[in-house]
């Protein structure tokens, strides 16, 4: 069954409004995009929606109480809260360097969680 949905592309700040004709998870046609990232976003959004996740973890012995962290790649949207629960119980030791791995292979996705900044 062919159907049309409207998606807003989040790849860049422009936020193109995409009209996506699809059959289940198969994209047939995308219009409204202003670059070729639009159709790619639409396909990913239908079959395996992912988001960058940024949060904080506790840090021991640092100049701050919290260390900001982020996923090295977009993370499966349906498992974000599962990931947050793991990170809530994580504590890292200062000093930390930016882009240092804080949690490797998070939830077996192959995606690392990295430190956003140096923290002494």
């Amino acid at each position, binding site marked *: 069954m062919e159907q049309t949905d409207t998606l807003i*592309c989040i790849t*860049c*700040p422009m936020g193109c409004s995409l009209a996506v004709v699809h059959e289940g998870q198969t994209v047939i046609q995308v219009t409204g995009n202003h670059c070729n990232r639009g159709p790619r976003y639409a396909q990913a959004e239908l079959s395996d929606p992912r*988001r*960058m996740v*940024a949060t904080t973890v506790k840090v021991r012995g640092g100049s*701050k109480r919290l260390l900001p962290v982020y996923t090295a790649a977009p993370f499966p949207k349906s498992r974000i809260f599962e990931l947050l629960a793991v990170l809530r119980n994580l504590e890292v030791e200062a000093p930390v360097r930016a882009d240092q791995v804080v949690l490797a292979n998070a939830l077996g996705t192959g995606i690392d969680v990295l430190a956003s*900044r140096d923290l002494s």
Partner: protein
Amino acid sequence: MKQKYDVVVIGSGPGGLAAAIAAKRAGAHDVLIIERDVELGGILQQCIHNGFGVESLKRDLTGPGYAQRFINEAQALNVEVLLDSMVLEITPERHIIACGKEAGLVELDARAVVLAMGCRERTRAQIRIPGTRPAGVYTAGTAQRWVNIEGYMPGKRFVILGSGDIGMIMARRLTFEGATVERMLEIMPFITGLNRNYVQCLLDFNIPLQLSHTVKRVLGSKRVEAVEAVQVDERWQPIAGTEEIIPCDTLLLSVGLIPENELSRQMGVKIDPLTGGPYVDDGFQTGMPGVFAAGNVVHVYDLVDWVTEAGLIAGRSAAEFALGKRPHPSADEKTCRTKASENVRYVVPQRVNAEALTQRPVKLQLRVLHPIEEPVWVEARNGDDLIARQAERYARPGEMLSLDLPQKAYDAVRRAETLTVNVVRRRA
């Protein structure tokens, strides 16, 4: 610490860091950043979400990650830093008085100053929300600092007034930390932040948004207990009968940002009432010789990438001034004014020196008054003569537009007293 610097930058957010880096690159020897916080980076340190640098660096970085790159570069260039110190006064002769717990009272002189104090959030008092005055009404940025840096949750059930980017990003952040965001209310008939944030911060987590709605009053004695929401008409007047009580313990305000210019005003820098920031020229020099301004202190940007870009220009210009290579525009008769005209709220810079075009193009930055969801021209004219124009697919008040004056416009700009800037439908 030295007694005299070529360039002193006030503030170490993205605008200040970029200015300090550019000043060094342009040949300034002694460059100092004065920062009131205990570390560099400004507001970026609390903006832990991603989305920074997509335009200019072609990388999707977090706020702290974006700051880190510029902090590293400033350090590599031996930019000096005075942390935990507040600038109290700058004189028109660029004598600076600062004060800090560790540093004590500091006095020094600058050949050029870059103002990079950023902006402040509008508060409850500035939008005059009626009702009681309980605890639990905060600006979104204040809550962001508590949650992301200090590790403190300001409430459990939130209503957020205003659909600016900080508000939407906080809606997601609070949801991540286990709170409930009951509602986002926006007085305008459109969201004021970016579409992408609407998707990934509100839609993703089913946070209800009501456009053309505002808070009629706050309820609660010691702590917020509820807010009364109401629909408004096109003149923002409440529509009787549409009131709704929304129980909550916290109201966050994301209702606009204002350039922070207390220092600038005190030293006598002239402020443009349209932007809330100093009048500047193409090199971001203010009306006061040797005083430059970078980033949100000039006008509020929606992307950090453009703050960095503006900071780089301001820093380079400040170094040129300090090294005696740049005159003050008031000494130059060939300065031309820019004027916000059809569907344009404001234009920065407010003055363009045609001579700048002998070096490089000059970028005008502007915001529209009303959204146009169809192709537009952004154009600059001298009377009826078209000097430059650029096609855009749409124009929205929430998204800054820019227009490059090309180098070949030199003669036209030199002849012009005023450049009027318009944003018009392409079809018309």
